[in-house]
């Protein structure tokens, strides 16, 4: 059994409520941080822990925190990014719904470290039942003296507020989120200035993902040096993976970052193998924007090494033969799935979610959707495949925010690894309406994975 740091108490009856959470060691880290470690002590441990942003980008959290500007007399803000909208990702929802106090404790420690007296949780609007759970936890914590004025007699004040979004993927991008929190359209800002200098209401702001902020609690509890031991290399600690698609046991799993992709998919502790005894065709390991990998490149790298569930190993081979750990949205596709159709749904998604500020993204995502639609519905031409490639290249790197890249990568990877499937669609416009291409990519049927 893998060790857990975030969900180790998730199974305890009543852990959603303060008394149970506290009785099981909750708020011990907050006490330690506020009473004995001080802001610099916490920052030091977070840096030592090697914690990387869990929202998708994987930027070192300690470094992000050390960038925050500290001009005299200007308030600083911590914003918790709970916009969780990357297709395939539903891990933060689990944390907030079942162990809200873990997040509140993480917010308290992090705000204390950053010197922020107001903290906003920006949660996607569709999670409409969760703000009540969070607000109840905040009220409980406040009632017990963990929020409000002069917390634990340290002179530190903190208020936490929950703000609902209203349906916009782009608001997961930190500057778009800030715009939205200011009551505007979610149009990303040009950087610099970075939020650490000019963020919410032009004040220094740190925006971190829910899981990142929750992970600060175990880091303070066990120390950065100990946290590193849960993982390998630059992939320290544990990671929440939300697994979905054609697997036996979809759900949210906390893994130590030292297990193989094969173990994650096939072992009963995690996904439990492919549903209905089908064979694995492909997988998007880190949320819809990261490159899709065919089964042969998913389980082993191009060099023939075992592919691990880590930032480094999933990225091994770059985009030519690798992918990314991203947000941990792990989408598994079996032999019956159509790559063209799947890519079309993502192109449609990004077109729908483009804020429209930058023309390469606004126009390009629309064209990709149209061309993919034609191919999927038997009206494609061979030249459309190159056209798609051309469009995605012209989006990538040419936009203010990474949504453009996020829209381009899935299309590029699908053509890179499954070009024969696109060609088959074009060459067989009628047949492709009645059946899928299946596993024809592989000269031999895929080997059954070794028992895990």
């Amino acid at each position, binding site marked *: 059994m893998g060790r857990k740091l975030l969900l180790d108490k998730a199974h305890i009856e009543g852990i959603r409520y303060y008394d149970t959470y506290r009785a099981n060691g909750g708020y011990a880290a907050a006490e330690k941080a506020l009473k004995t470690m001080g802001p610099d002590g916490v920052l030091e441990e977070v840096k030592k822990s090697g914690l990387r942003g869990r929202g998708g980008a994987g930027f070192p959290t300690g470094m992000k925190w050390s960038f925050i500007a500290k001009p005299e007399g200007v308030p600083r803000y911590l914003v918790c990014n709970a916009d969780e909208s990357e297709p*395939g990702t*539903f891990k933060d929802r689990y944390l907030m719904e079942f162990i809200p106090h873990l997040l509140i404790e993480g917010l308290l420690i992090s705000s204390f470290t950053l010197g922020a007296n107001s903290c906003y949780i920006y949660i996607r609007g569709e999670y409409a039942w969760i703000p009540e759970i969070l607000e109840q936890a905040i009220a409980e914590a406040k009632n017990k003296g963990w929020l409000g004025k002069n917390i634990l007699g340290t002179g530190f004040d903190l208020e936490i507020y929950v703000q609902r979004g*209203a349906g916009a993927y782009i608001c997961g991008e930190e500057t778009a989120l800030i715009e*939205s929190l200011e009551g505007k359209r979610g149009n990303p800002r040009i950087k610099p200035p970075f939020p650490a200098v000019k963020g919410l209401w032009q004040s220094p702001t740190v925006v971190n993902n829910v899981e990142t902020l929750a992970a600060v609690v175990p880091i303070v509890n066990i120390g950065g040096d100990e946290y590193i031991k849960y993982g390998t290399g630059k992939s320290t600690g544990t990671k929440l993976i939300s697994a979905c698609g054609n697997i036996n046991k979809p759900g949210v799993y906390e893994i130590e970052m030292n297990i193989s992709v094969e173990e994650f998919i096939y072992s009963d502790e995690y996904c439990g193998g492919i549903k209905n005894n089908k064979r694995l065709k492909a997988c998007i390991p880190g949320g819809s924007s990261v490159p899709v990998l065919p089964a042969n490149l998913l389980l082993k790298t191009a060099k023939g090494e075992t592919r691990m569930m880590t930032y480094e190993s999933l990225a091994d081979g770059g985009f030519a033969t690798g992918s990314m750990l991203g947000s941990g949205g792990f989408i598994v596709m079996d032999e019956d799935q159509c790559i063209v159709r799947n890519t079309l749904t993502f192109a449609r*998604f990004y077109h729908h979610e483009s804020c429209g500020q930058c023309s390469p993204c606004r126009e390009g995502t629309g064209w990709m959707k149209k061309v993919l639609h034609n191919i999927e519905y038997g009206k494609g031409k061979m030249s459309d495949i190159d056209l798609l490639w051309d469009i995605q290249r012209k989006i990538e790197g040419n936009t203010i925010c990474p949504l453009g890249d996020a829209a381009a990568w899935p299309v590029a990877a699908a053509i890179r690894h499954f070009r024969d499937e696109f060609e088959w669609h074009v060459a067989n416009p009628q047949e492709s309406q009645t059946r899928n291409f299946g596993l024809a990519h592989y000269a031999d049927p895929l080997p059954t994975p070794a028992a895990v």
Partner: protein
Amino acid sequence: MAVVQFSEEKLNKVKEIIARYPQGKQKSALIPVLHLAQEAFGGWLSAETMDYVATLLQLEPIEVYEVATFYSMFNLKPVGTYLFEVCQTGPCMVSGSDQIIDYIKTKLGIGVGETTADGLFTLKTVECLGACGYAPMMQLGKHYREHLTPAKVDEIIAECRAKANAN
């Protein structure tokens, strides 16, 4: 058409929301207040409703319109009493959302974006709602309905009809 005016209780809620932000930053309350307004005034935002929100928050009406039109959860046209928002993005698609959407269409006799003649149901397709492990799914009001099957859809429709009859 009833006058657009929040109840005392809702007005207090608006005040409480504005108090979350620094002095003079009440524009930040716009999205939360639009949610309140949509709930209070029939599940959608009419021009009158948006103008009312603008007055309440001391904003120009255009500042409200541009936000209301940006976010997909704000309905700019009337919708049925029960709004079925079915996810159709990749993970739901590989788990059979296309069949669920087709089933609802047949069952209710409406297309995507349409409302039944009795005004009870509207069908909308939406993009990823973050319930990929529990697909196929839809949002109904404040909550998610997950692991959908035709039988479950039947139950949900019956449940809505029963609720409507009770009112």
